[in-house]
């Protein structure tokens, strides 16, 4: 991306203008996109980076000698560098593994690092507010080798219940937590909890899928051990996720998926794995996707992550205030009611209106919210809900979006009486 394309001071209308999908008209209304927690909308710079890649430089990476193969390799490895610097990986690009999504990265963590380092009776400590991506792989590992998966409870105030954390830490070898809940918006005290885990001799993994595009990230400063996220939630494309860990841990991890690219030798009798991130990138990697992810990182850096935090906090504060005052208590926010340690994900429970119906009515106003369990069924059960209707913000969101949301919610509430 040419530096001229960067915005120097943050302006959400500028981001909006950069985002082609926001020009969509739905049911005769401009789209009101409030589903960035599911997937964000890529700016033109990202879409064009991919288009240019396929038009100009596409080739398989590695081992190529010809020019476009070198260029494709530079695009791919360049994205690795950009991501490393975006999260401030202490060991740089060598610590960045590209997966297909955050979910594959959790499977890599559980089935490579976990299968090697955890044995029966060892505990992986997660929480009741985790996404299935940070639960199911641990259950699968449990089937394999009898680890215990333990859950930190969630309080009625929608925050981790840390009252008994010291006793919960018994036999814990890994703490794996979301930095921000995709249902509640709750932001967890990752740095403190990582320090606590380390005091107990445990490692610490972060599910950063929700925080990556909504706050600055510094894995060195957080002093965590694993860090996982997906490009499609940070204005990037589908099909690529990131797994970060310290180089020493990465080097000691056994291979995961097998195939081309992750070997240093193959004989009919056996194989020797490659070293570095390659060991975990079997087969042709997501090259076009890396082009998109690299552009997304540049774009976010251009906006400035602290600007985004401020902007989204303002939107969230405004929305929470209006939702609390306008519906005579019929609309309940499932999540913290203030913006302290809370991001722009707002789950709604509306008395007498099922989230599916809420979303359906909202669609008639061009409002995109997501109904469902948000891949967090344990959390839903904890609060006795089958589903919520979730609205979530991105850097392109405006208070105008909240206006339309509230207008449409009024309609839904009236309709279902």
């Amino acid at each position, binding site marked *: 991306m040419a530096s001229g394309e960067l915005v120097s001071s943050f302006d959400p209308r500028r981001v909006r203008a950069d985002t082609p999908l926001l020009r969509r008209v739905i049911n005769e209304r401009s789209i009101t996109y409030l589903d960035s927690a599911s997937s964000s909308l890529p700016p033109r710079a990202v879409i064009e980076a991919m288009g240019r890649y396929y038009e100009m430089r596409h080739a398989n990476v590695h081992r190529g000698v010809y020019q476009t193969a070198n260029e494709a390799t530079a695009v791919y490895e360049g994205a690795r560098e950009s991501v490393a610097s975006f999260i401030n990986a202490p060991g740089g690009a060598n610590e960045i593994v590209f997966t297909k999504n955050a979910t594959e990265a959790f499977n890599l963590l559980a089935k490579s690092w976990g299968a090697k380092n955890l044995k029966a009776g060892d505990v992986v400590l997660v929480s009741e507010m985790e996404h299935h991506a940070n639960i199911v792989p641990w259950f699968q590992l449990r089937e394999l080798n009898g680890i215990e998966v333990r859950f930190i409870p969630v309080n009625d105030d929608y925050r981790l219940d840390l009252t008994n954390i010291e006793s919960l830490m018994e036999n814990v070898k890994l703490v794996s937590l979301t930095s921000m809940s995709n249902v509640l918006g709750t932001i967890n005290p990752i740095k403190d909890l990582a320090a606590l885990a380390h005091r107990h001799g445990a490692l610490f993994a972060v599910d950063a899928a929700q925080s990556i595009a909504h706050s600055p990230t510094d894995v060195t400063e957080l002093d965590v051990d694993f860090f996982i996220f997906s490009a499609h939630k940070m204005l990037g494309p589908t099909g690529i996720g990131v797994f970060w860990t310290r180089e020493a841990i990465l080097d000691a991890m056994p291979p995961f998926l097998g195939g081309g690219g992750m070997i240093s030798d193959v004989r009919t009798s056996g194989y020797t794995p490659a070293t570095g991130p390659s060991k975990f990138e079997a087969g042709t990697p997501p090259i076009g996707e890396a082009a998109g992810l690299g552009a997304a990182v540049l774009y976010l850096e251009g906006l400035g992550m602290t600007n985004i935090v401020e902007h989204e906090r303002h939107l969230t504060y405004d929305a929470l205030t209006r939702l609390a005052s306008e519906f005579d208590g019929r609309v309940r926010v499932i999540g913290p009611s203030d913006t302290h340690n809370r991001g722009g994900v707002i789950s709604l429970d509306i008395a007498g*209106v*099922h*989230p*599916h*119906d809420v979303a*359906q*009515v909202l669609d*008639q106003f061009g409002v995109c919210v997501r*109904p*469902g*369990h948000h891949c967090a069924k344990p959390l*839903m059960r904890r609060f006795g809900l*089958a*589903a919520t209707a979730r609205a979530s913000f991105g850097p392109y969101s405006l208070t105008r979006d909240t206006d339309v949301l509230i207008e449409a919610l009024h309609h839904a509430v009236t*309709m*279902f*009486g």
Partner: protein
Amino acid sequence: MSSLEDLYREVILDHYRSPRNRGELASPPALRVEGFNPLCGDEIVVYLEVRDGVLVDIKLTGHGCSISQSSSSLMSAAVKGKPVSEVRGIIANFKQLMTGVEATLSDEKPAAPVDLRAMGELAALQGVVKFPVRIKCATLAWNTLTQGLDELD
């Protein structure tokens, strides 16, 4: 908003707000069948009592959106007290109401049109077909009922 009002017709909202045949039956003798839509979390439990080839009683519990709830309520009202053979016919008709238009959406030939008059209140669910993702909501109870009848066979 016309298609929205087509989806949420008054009959549907009425059955959603005041579901018919809600409750449980002792099982046994009644058969208890569970239905589940993993996509949106809708759950339904159907209790069936068939005697001498007649569906003498049906009760429903569960939770879900207005479409799945009203569809199950409408279904219970439509099938209760009917001979099983007739119930199967009603199910087939209803499924066709849903799939006929699904097929149209996917560019195939539309199935023979369903006789809407014969369907009574059930016809109110016709608006669902314009919202393909909601068809699964509407058919959940019906699939669960079918499963129950198959088990009794």
